[in-house]
């Protein structure tokens, strides 16, 4: 009897997600799908609101990565108020960069310590009650404390730059509404050990070495697990450097040949389309020049290190050279190497934060730039999970008449589906029974992309964990609820 195995929602992935794996009568995988319940109401909700409200309103969209939405919206509105995308004051741009790199640092650290380290330390076949941060805390207490403190450091950077943890107001159209006081700067630079930037750099290197040690001992697993060729897309700085906050769009194919040659993201719609599929609420972005079949691409840490030419900070650049040498300078298409790339980015974020904290421009008083007002703007940045697009139009009475968002997880929709299929084929096909370790392997493949599936609300009593098993006629065979 054929079966449809449903994992709902995916454990330790943000928000809702459901995986269905269709088996035939011989337990061979015939189809896999990652279903994501994406919240799409925001684009309509924001229409009719004054444009200057957008950087705060977008934080309603997601309680998990509000800083990224806050900054992407502000970047789009920089264009509308005539200040952007390259015209911010030094203080305005550097404060935003500090906020963004703090966000990247804390989010990457959380992903590694809370989500990935249990798999690395205990193995992906370990029982579920073993693979969590509590067990890491018990057996590797120092490591877990580092994760907590790195997350806290990044959160404090956000608080200092955005003004507050909830609904931050730091970024405004054309700039920023506060600078960093010398007292705030000293807290991060000279803070009591371990809450200071030098310790964050040291711990970032330690985390990277932990991954590299695991890689050395598990080379075949790390190099082959959910590996598949793909295109890669990200922002890069105009000189080709890795840049999370600003740049031009570059895309390369699996061999490293450029598909998009450093284009101005104000014109992204000329190059990127979004396909709708009947079985998913989430769209499938693609490069128009290659079409829907071949134009899908990866975004995120792996893609960024595949598209950029160098990393503009010394310690991360050294790690980048080792990373690139592993694939002889060609793009790296190994999904598990996403963790390697993410930890190099974590180190880079820490180095950039140190440089910014020691930059006197952060104590400057020229916070906002102005120019000739326009009616349309696009803001793009590289957030934790990949490239994030915000696009607004405001034609009459300063009210928003159009909004289009392409969030990072949407950009990775097709790659995540590919990853699920890869793992299902390798570990589930032909098996007579489904062990928990196999299911976790599917989740490990998805988690490598750090998807954000949040709908932002989380009221008590919602979102049970449910696993359902169906036959090919959609009859429920088994169901388990967490």
């Amino acid at each position: 009897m054929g079966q449809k195995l449903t994992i709902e929602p995916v454990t330790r992935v943000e928000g809702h997600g459901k995986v269905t794996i269709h088996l035939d009568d011989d337990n061979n995988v015939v189809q896999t799908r990652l279903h994501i319940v994406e919240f799409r109401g925001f684009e309509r909700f924001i229409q009719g609101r004054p444009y200057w409200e957008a950087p705060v309103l977008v934080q309603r969209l997601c309680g998990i990565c509000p800083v990224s939405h806050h900054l992407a919206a502000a970047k789009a509105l920089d264009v509308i108020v005539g200040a952007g995308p390259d015209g911010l004051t030094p203080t305005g741009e550097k404060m935003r960069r500090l906020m963004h790199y703090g966000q990247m640092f804390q989010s990457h650290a959380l992903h590694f310590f809370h989500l990935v380290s249990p798999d690395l330390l205990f193995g992906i076949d370990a029982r579920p009650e073993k693979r969590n941060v509590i067990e890491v805390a018990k057996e590797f207490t120092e490591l877990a404390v580092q994760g907590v403190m790195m997350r806290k450091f990044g959160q404090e950077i956000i608080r200092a730059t955005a003004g507050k943890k909830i609904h931050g107001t730091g970024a405004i159209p054309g700039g920023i509404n506060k600078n960093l006081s010398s007292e705030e700067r000293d807290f991060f630079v000279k803070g009591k050990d371990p809450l200071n930037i030098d310790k964050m750099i040291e711990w970032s290197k330690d985390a990277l070495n932990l991954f590299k040690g695991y890689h050395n001992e598990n080379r075949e697993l790390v190099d082959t697990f959910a590996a598949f060729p793909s295109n890669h897309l990200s922002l890069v700085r105009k000189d080709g450097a890795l840049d999370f906050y600003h740049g031009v769009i570059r895309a390369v194919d699996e061999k490293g040949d450029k598909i998009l040659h450093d284009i101005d993201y104000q014109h992204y719609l000329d190059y990127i389309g979004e396909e709708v599929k009947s079985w998913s609420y989430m769209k499938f972005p693609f490069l128009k020049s290659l079409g829907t079949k071949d134009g899908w691409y990866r975004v995120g840490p792996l893609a960024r290190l595949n598209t950029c030419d160098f990393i503009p900070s010394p310690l991360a650049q050294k790690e980048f050279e080792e990373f690139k040498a592993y694939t002889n300078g060609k793009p790296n298409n190994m999904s598990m190497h996403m963790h390697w790339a993410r930890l190099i980015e974590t180190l880079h974020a820490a180095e950039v934060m140190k440089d910014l904290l020691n930059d006197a421009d952060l104590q400057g008083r020229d916070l906002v730039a102005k120019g000739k007002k326009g009616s349309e703007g696009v803001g793009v940045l590289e957030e934790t999970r990949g490239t994030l697009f915000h696009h607004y139009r405001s034609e009459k009475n300063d009210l928003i008449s159009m909004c289009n968002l392409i969030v990072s997880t949407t950009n990775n929709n097709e790659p995540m589906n590919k990853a699920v299929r890869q793992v299902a084929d390798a570990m589930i096909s032909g098996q007579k029974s489904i062990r928990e370790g196999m299911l976790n392997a599917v989740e490990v493949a998805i988690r490598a992309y750090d998807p954000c599936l949040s709908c932002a609300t989380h009221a008590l009593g919602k979102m049970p964990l449910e696993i359902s098993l169906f036959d090919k006629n959609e009859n429920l065979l088994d169901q388990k609820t967490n």
Partner: protein
Amino acid sequence: MKKILIFGYGNPGRQDDALGVLLADHMEKWAEEKDIKSMDFDTNYQLNIEDALTISEYDMVIFADASIEQIADFKLSQVKPNQKTEFTMHAMSPDFVLHLCQSLYNKYPATYLLHIKGVEFEMKESLTAIGKDNLALAYEFLMNAFTKFSYPKDLLDRHCTGQTGEIIF
């Protein structure tokens, strides 16, 4: 003096999801007016691993959150460490945070969760009428508890276990 933390969480841009955050805000204003020094306040969209460090520095923690459980208006429950695996990455339950606190720092505070009934969670910034009423009741309850006692652990414990029925302050 015992240190107490009131920690409300939720997304204020989603109607009644703001109930926990607003409860913490109300209590903070009340404590300022009364010049109470032993209480601290915090808010965020959700709980996470760094909150294990935060709560480790207190004797008592009261989390406040919106709830869609089948309750009339609000309820208080004790929180004990629980290792139940979370299936979301960037949001943790209070009992998981408590367990992480215990694992990392070998201690944990007396902890309670104030569940405040909400009914609507759409993209609007104001509470529903029902949410407002329930917030007022929860606020009154907590304010009265701290008016009567600077460290009302016994009172809160009785309320959680239902030993006294309705608490009369």
